[in-house]
């Protein structure tokens, strides 16, 4: 009844191709953005620092992974490695170039990650599918080993675990969780918008052509080399920016052991459960994977309290988490984004059934 396009006329091509054609969508997005900006005034430090900031950062990385896996169809397990490149690059830029604004350092570290991504994306020209997934593990292990082994990356710090520098821009030190949140929010929103437009444009169409049938795409004249490497580069850029933010705005340490293969798997989960090939899916999936273990932890504690041995409780949480993943894959393989899409379609018809 409320959510429909009757009465909204589009009279120019620009109006027709806009991102949010329905007025209700535009209003909704505006509300969400305003709420997102105002949250730090209402939320406590725990919500900001432990839930919202990592959610935004991991959504960004999931976005990068989605570009590579969902749009371009290249199975990759190396996202945590590219995050590590971004984090260390950002640390080194801020260390060696005095007074560099944080955002510039972040962008440059994304570029570094993109270059590394291109190098490790070269095998994708010859290998595909599951083999490529295992090949990308090579990038994960090699990158983390190299960053740990060569002291130059850590500025020869004897402790081996570096504390990230404070985020300083335009003379202001963004120290509190609220301020860090705003920095992360701006970066994520801008990059998400960019990703959405890339996906809608010829770049995205090229990726989807390669995903669906790369031989046919090549026959049609699409350069596989350029498209695949472009996908790797852009995806690694997102992962690198996400990694820099992860180290600077969340963990406040820059160390290789934060970027393990377990993190790569988590990102993979986020993308698949959120919905392959969708932008919204990255955000939804990141939220689900981030919140579910915490939710289980809190649930088990509140249900059983101290009566059940904590070790048993922790094993139970892991068990249930795995079961939820499997259930999700069985009942909605297209992910949370599809559920959202179906909800919107039902809203269009509401209050009618069909």
């Amino acid at each position, binding site marked *: 009844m409320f959510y429909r396009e009757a009465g909204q006329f589009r009279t120019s091509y620009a109006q027709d191709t806009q991102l949010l054609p329905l007025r209700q969508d535009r209003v909704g997005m505006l509300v969400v953005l305003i709420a997102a900006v105002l949250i730090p005034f209402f939320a406590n430090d725990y919500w900001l620092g432990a839930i919202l900031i990592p959610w935004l950062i991991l959504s960004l990385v999931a976005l990068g992974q989605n570009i590579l*896996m969902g749009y371009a169809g290249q*199975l990759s397990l190396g996202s945590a490695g590219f995050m590590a490149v971004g984090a260390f690059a950002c640390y080194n830029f801020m260390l060696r170039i005095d007074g560099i604004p944080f955002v510039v350092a972040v962008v440059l570290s994304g570029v570094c990650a993109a270059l590394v991504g291109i190098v490790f994306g070269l*095998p994708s020209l*010859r*290998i*595909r*599918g*599951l*083999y490529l*997934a*295992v*090949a990308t*593990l*090579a990038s994960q*292990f*090699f990158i983390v*080993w190299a960053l740990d*082994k060569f002291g130059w990356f850590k500025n020869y710090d004897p402790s081996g675990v570096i504390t990230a520098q404070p985020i300083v821009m335009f003379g202001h030190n963004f120290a509190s969780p609220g301020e860090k949140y705003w920095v992360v929010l701006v970066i994520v929103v801008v990059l998400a918008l960019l990703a959405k437009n890339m996906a809608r444009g010829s770049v995205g169409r090229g990726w989807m052509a390669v995903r669906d*049938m790369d*031989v*046919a795409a090549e*026959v049609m004249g699409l350069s596989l080399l350029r498209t695949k490497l472009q996908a790797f580069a852009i995806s690694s850029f997102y992962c690198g920016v996400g990694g820099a933010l992860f180290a600077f705005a969340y963990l406040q340490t820059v160390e290789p052991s934060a970027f393990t*293969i377990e993190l790569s*798997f988590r990102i*993979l*989960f986020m993308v*698949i459960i959120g919905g*392959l090939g969708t932008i919204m899916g990255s955000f939804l999936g990141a939220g689900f994977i981030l919140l579910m273990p915490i939710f289980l932890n809190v649930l088990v504690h509140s249900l059983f309290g101290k009566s059940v041995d904590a*070790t*048993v409780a*922790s*094993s*139970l*949480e*892991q*068990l*249930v*988490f*795995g*079961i939820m*993943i*499997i259930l999700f*894959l*069985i009942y909605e*393989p297209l992910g949370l984004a599809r559920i959202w899409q179906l909800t919107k379609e039902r809203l269009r018809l509401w209050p009618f059934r069909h």
Partner: protein
Amino acid sequence: MGDIFFFVEVLVAGLLSGVMYALVALGFVLIYKASSVFNFAQGAMVFLAVLSFVGFMELGLPFWAALPVTIGMMVLVGMATERFVLRPLVSQTEETLLMATIGLAFVIEGLAQFLWGVDVRNLDLGIHDEPIGWVMDTTGMLISQLDIMAGVVAGIMVTALALLFSRTKVGRGLRAVADDHTAALSIGIPLKHIWMLVWATAGVVALVAGMLWGARSGVQFALVWVALKALPVLIIGGFTSVPGVIVAGLLVGASEKVVEVYFGPYFGGGVEVWFPYILAVLFLLIRPEGLFGEKIIRRV
């Protein structure tokens, strides 16, 4: 002269550890060959198998009774996996199935710790793991009884499985199911029985691999990561080849150790963690389906 002996020592050590990798990789190949599913949960299954085995023995069962009981339990786990995880996902993409097996890995790990607790246990197979005297005296090589046992067991299993797949009726049925299970169903191959058999065999393989690794490293949580060592072996050998697993295992083991000892120190060591994977990538660039894997034919 001493340097040559040392090189031979390192080489032999590498070959022997390659056999251990191959044992783990065998489980992967089995399941992939019969159901085209890459079972990421194989590492967790190795852990569950050997942990249950030791757990049953702690509960009082003697060695030879605990063995069939554990195998039975792994068969049940396999059947439950097939019924509740794989069958509902039967028409999904490769990525979805991969994710489902990763989720399964979490389930099995949580289950193992839930059932048996987190205590570290020791597995004593009664086989000496010290260098055999006369071998060391005559050739200078360090080979233990456990190494020989591992090699013999691996050899037997690989031969038996290779023969199963290529010579027997059951094996033909397995290959048919992997190729196209709807077609196999339509000509009357009993899908459920075939899958039960495959998962039972994979469970046995997991148990054997787990016992050998557990005897060396103790029965504790890190065993789930032996799977990560087996992945390069799978790639180089090909996901669908049983004899390829042994050849690739020997290759990966030997090259990994030699590189670590001779080239590692120039980089500060620790190259073992990525070298097999980079080697696998290089192999793939030359032969995208692995040394012995089936050639991938794609129709456009």
